[in-house]
């Protein structure tokens, strides 16, 4: 039981991070059909910027806020100067652009930050909480709570505000959205900014647990992408569920099966799910209209 709970929380914490990255993928994909492989770099920017502003003597809460704003600015710039300029390019070219952007951002982080690993102090100390025999870090709960808050905020925003409705409209049908007077270009830019902010917040929340350096984005993007697809691309709830499932799979595979092959187990399950449900867990089969 203690083991199970330990694995469960390990999986949920890691899964929450995947979920947030997957959510970033989903937002941008819905608004623009672009799979943004630079999504992981937003996570990196959030953590690294906070660390370095902190080192420069800025109080951490302010540093974190500035880091999120900085990541949003980078997200907007990515949209404005790369995605927008390449409008009309095919999907693979756009993905390639985001891969180029991620190489660029990683390269820039190497130069302007450094190549070392860094950490941030845990928000509420690092004394583990004992729970039915398992030891859980307070920061894990912060990550989980943060993920919940982000999802709720996002849902409220989408569901309750006009801007949110415009985002939905753009996702459903871009042409129709334009026809009813929605500036879809701004909506897409806005999605990039929000995705960047979510990524940056995730980066700040997890750095006390997972550490950060210029290179952390690559793997997170990969896992986040897999999580988004597992849940069903373009479905926000799918991204969250996909992320959590992936995290839990890894934790339980490492705990109960083989830690050597835990990533293999996770991807085997993803492959199996896709073979059975080609649109992911929550994706509904699209009827091809001809």
């Amino acid at each position, binding site marked *: 039981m203690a083991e199970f709970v330990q694995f469960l929380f390990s999986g949920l914490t*890691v899964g929450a991070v995947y979920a947030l990255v997957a959510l970033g993928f989903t937002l941008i994909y819905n608004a623009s059909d672009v799979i943004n492989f630079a999504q992981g770099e937003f996570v990196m920017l959030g953590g690294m910027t906070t660390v370095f502003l902190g080192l420069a003597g800025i109080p951490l809460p302010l540093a974190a806020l500035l880091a999120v704003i900085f990541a949003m600015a980078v997200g907007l710039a990515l949209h404005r100067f790369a995605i927008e300029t390449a409008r009309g390019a095919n999907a693979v070219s756009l993905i390639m652009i985001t891969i180029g952007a991620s190489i660029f951002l990683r390269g820039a982080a190497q130069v302007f930050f450094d190549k070392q690993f860094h950490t941030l102090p845990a928000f509420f100390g690092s004394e583990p909480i004992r729970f039915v025999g398992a*030891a859980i870090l307070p920061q894990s709960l912060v990550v989980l709570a943060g993920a919940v808050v982000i999802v709720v905020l996002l849902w409220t925003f989408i569901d309750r505000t006009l801007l949110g409705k415009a985002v939905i409209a753009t996702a459903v049908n871009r042409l129709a959205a334009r026809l009813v007077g929605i500036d879809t270009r701004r909506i897409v830019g806005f999605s990039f900014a929000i995705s960047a902010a979510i990524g940056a917040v995730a980066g700040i929340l997890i750095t006390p647990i997972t550490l950060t350096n210029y290179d952390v984005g690559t793997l997170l993007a990969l896992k986040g992408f897999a999580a988004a697809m597992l849940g069903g691309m373009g479905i926000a709830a799918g991204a969250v569920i996909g992320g959590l499932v992936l995290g839990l799979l890894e934790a339980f595979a490492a705990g109960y099966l083989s830690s*050597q092959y835990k990533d293999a187990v996770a991807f085997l399950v993803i492959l199996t799910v896709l073979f059975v449900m080609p649109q992911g867990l929550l994706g509904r089969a699209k009827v091809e209209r001809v």
Partner: protein
Amino acid sequence: MMQKYMKIAAASIFAACLAVGSASAQVKIGAILSVTGPASFLGDPEKKTLEMYVADINAKGGVNGKKLELVVYDDGGKPNEALTFAKRLVDEDKITAMVGGSTTGVTLAIIPIFEEAQIPFISLAGAIQIIQPVRKWVFKTPHTDTMACEKIFADLKRRNLTKVALISGTAAFGKSMRDQCVAVAPKAGITVVHEESYGPGDTDMTPQLTNIKGKAGVQAVINTDFGQGPAIVTRNYQQLGIKLPFYQSHGVASKQYINLAGPAAEGVRLPAAALLVADKLSANDKQKPVVEAYKKTYEQKSGQPVSTFGGHAYDGLMILVEAAKRAGSWDKAKVRDEIEKTKGFVGTGGIVNMSPTDHLGLDLTAFRMLEIKKGDWTLVSDSGS
């Protein structure tokens, strides 16, 4: 529009050719380092060290009447790229000697090129396969992983602990050291009762450690890996409240590890070179002046805490320079012979005594067993526990 970009492209290619082709009467020292990529925390301090000391040597007039020119290429940790750069160093840059190869994979890949070109090659990577069997032109400065295992096992024996659990990273260093430790364990009277591993970039190792915790009979835990993994393992170790003696490898021999692991690092032991405890060495320790000087120089100029990895590069460069001085020329064969004759060289990694059958020249005394206390390294005396 199009034309403009083509022009820019052409110009930059031209500039690159110029940069490559600038010949000089200097002696060229090649270095292929993993400055970026997963092994960048090896390559980065190595590069900084080499640059610092080459500038320093040149400021003092160079060696054998010639100034050194350092040609550094970044392989990003990829052996295929390293091979191409090795070819370039030999064919284009026409280097006289080579210091580098941050990782074992890269070093093993590029060895044939330097063997064939007959250029002295001092590797900065860990594995014992680099110098065993002995290759005429290949040397290395870091202690082997096997030695680290033996050092840890010896310490365990002193504490009367014989049953260990291993948790290793699956990336190059961790896996390779894990293999070495498993191989030499029986000889040292140590039984590996349980093994776990984790992937590069993994962020939570509590499942693996939970399994170790639940395994009966484990008396101590050894973590073989470098990078951020060991710091996370250390934190998870504390999180789960595991009380068993915990050993890290020489792969975390940098103050950064303590900073990242925080209070969780208290009581962790690891084998490492004297460099880390420069200020705590006894005054009559032969290595003290060397390591103190290097530590001071490195930390001043780079603004980062010293690591033993940069120290390996220092040792490599200095062994090469000393050998060239003894040879009185930069003739490759003569320099090689002199490297092989290196005796009593005091480096950051230990006292080096090479021979035709030993291209490393370090023994177990080069390693110090350290324990982390109050956020700093302390020496574990060889007699006590």
